[in-house]
């Protein structure tokens, strides 16, 4: 049974990838996550210059959901150079550099700098729901903005494949994906966090998160992620690789994502529920399921639901 996936020319030993924003600040931590079985790593969002996040509390959770409003803090380009440079010297698994900016032009400038560090993919975060007070609605909420960012990044990305990270908080995620595909995107990461949501402390009667609202992740959002992946896959004709992320806890969750149309699967919040070993656990659970079902390679699963739907039509 093979878990290996080759995506846009890059081979991942297994489809699990550390999702952006979680445990992704230093080369040491990326290697640690790889040592726990992740097939790939996504960095925390990288800014051109230093960007401050929100005060605490920034991350809170219950058994069903996690809310975060970390506010995308980053030390800027110099740190990215140091950490990615360090990682590239001894690189256990492929690295996806996630970038963010406040304007279309700055997305282009950030991408131009980061591609020089030779990540395997660029992932473009146009969908963070935690910085709306600062920057307004995410670029992922408009066909025009999403397309403009994609073009700006593709203009400077050279041979490095560009994945656009989409928001579930839109009326029609398929039309956003189609627009990005037309603008040159090489793939999609689906989805960023949901909402935003809010939690209130009863005695003080105040919102718990310092930012008041935060993006929702964790097991509760999985059905939304599955539907969004299916929408993007269908809207782009099944021709674009999708990194499916949002609420994955188990190997069976991962298989469901593949059937919806994903090629790789992002795991983030589940680290808080099942520990750092979650990557290895998910791989073992996927292998066990595939072996029991006679599936020889996970590659045959991607988009399986769409094929099952068409063959079941009279």
């Amino acid at each position, binding site marked *: 049974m093979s878990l290996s996936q080759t995506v846009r020319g890059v081979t991942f030993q297994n489809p699990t990838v550390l999702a952006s924003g*979680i*445990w*992704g*600040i*230093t080369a*040491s*931590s*990326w*290697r*640690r*996550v790889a040592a726990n079985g992740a097939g790939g790593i996504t960095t*925390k969002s990288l800014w051109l210059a*230093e*960007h*401050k*996040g929100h*005060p*605490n*509390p*920034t*991350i*809170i*959770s*219950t*058994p*069903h959901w*996690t809310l975060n409003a*970390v506010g995308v*803090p*980053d*030390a800027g380009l110099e*740190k990215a150079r140091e950490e990615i440079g360090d990682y590239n010297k001894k690189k256990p698994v492929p690295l996806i550099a996630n970038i963010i900016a406040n304007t279309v032009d700055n997305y282009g400038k950030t991408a131009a700098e980061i591609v020089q560090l030779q990540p395997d993919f660029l992932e473009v975060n146009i969908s963070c729901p935690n910085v709306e007070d600062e920057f307004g609605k995410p670029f992922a909420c408009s066909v025009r903005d999403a397309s403009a960012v994609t073009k700006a990044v593709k203009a400077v990305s050279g041979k490095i494949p560009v994945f656009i990270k989409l928001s579930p908080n839109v009326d029609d995620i398929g039309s956003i994906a189609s627009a990005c595909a037309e603008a040159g995107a090489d793939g999609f990461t689906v989805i960023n966090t949901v909402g935003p949501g809010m*939690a209130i*402390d*009863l*005695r*003080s009667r*105040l919102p*718990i998160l*310092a930012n008041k609202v935060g993006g929702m992740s964790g*097991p509760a959002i999985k059905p939304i992620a599955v539907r969004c992946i299916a929408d993007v896959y269908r809207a782009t004709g099944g021709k674009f690789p999708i990194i499916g992320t949002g609420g994955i*806890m*188990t190997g069976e*969750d991962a298989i469901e994502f593949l059937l919806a149309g994903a090629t790789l699967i992002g795991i*983030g*919040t589940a*680290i*808080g*529920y*099942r*520990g*750092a070993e979650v990557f290895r656990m998910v791989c073992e659970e996927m292998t066990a399921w595939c072996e029991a079902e006679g599936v020889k390679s996970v590659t045959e699963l991607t988009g399986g639901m769409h094929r099952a739907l068409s063959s079941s039509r009279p």
Partner: protein
Amino acid sequence: MTCGCCHNRLPVTHRIASVKRETEQVTSFTFAVSLGAKPGQFVMVWLPGVDEVPMSIANDDGKQLQITFFAVGDTTKKLALLKKGDLVGLRGPFGTHYEWKPKQHLSLVAGGYGAAPMFFAASEAAKDQCTLTAIVGARSKEHLLYLDAFAKLKGTTVSVATDDGSQGHKGYNVELLSALLKGKKKPDQVFACGPERMLVAVSDLCHEQKVPCQISLERYMKCGYGLCGNCTVDPLGIRLCTDGPVVKNELARTITEFGKYHRDHLGKKHSL
């Protein structure tokens, strides 16, 4: 799929049951709640509308929880202004804790407000018939903490060091530990909590004298339960909120940034 491990990840506000001004800059709050914390663990302390910061737990006896803090930053300065009955959010407990066996001889090295978690360890270890030497250090007499509390514990000897010699040994508490480790009755284990330079000295000394040691390492924390990765240390990439804050000396000595630098909320390095 859900789990029962994450009941402590939403802050809950509690009213301060009592306030004690320990020194000019150090304050203790007691809450009429137990979080089932063990010595060395920490709690995220939330001042609604301001910020949430990690703090070592000074005591949790199953009925009451106590925190002791130094008003050094914006949040702790605002916390220090609170009165009995005011609301403070607590989230935790998180992290590893000090470990001992019944009847062991333990030396506890406390620097500054590190005396608070060291007292918690001492009071719990005393219940296990451990014999204890508490070596408490501070800049000067008026900054010494928990001396009376240590002295009241069964089987506990207290020795004191101040930088200016205003009480006890003039110099560092590590000098007192050194004399103890080089003497005839070596302790079974050393526990330490305090400024990182002191921890480095304790780590070196215990390594050299081949005495097992557990130290509490502090790094910038956000989530407290291993998700954000802000407290990972080089080169291991381990998270000090889950693999720490209390680490065994063998592990501490493989952390190359120990005693050298730490990272801020942006992940940027700062020399110690």
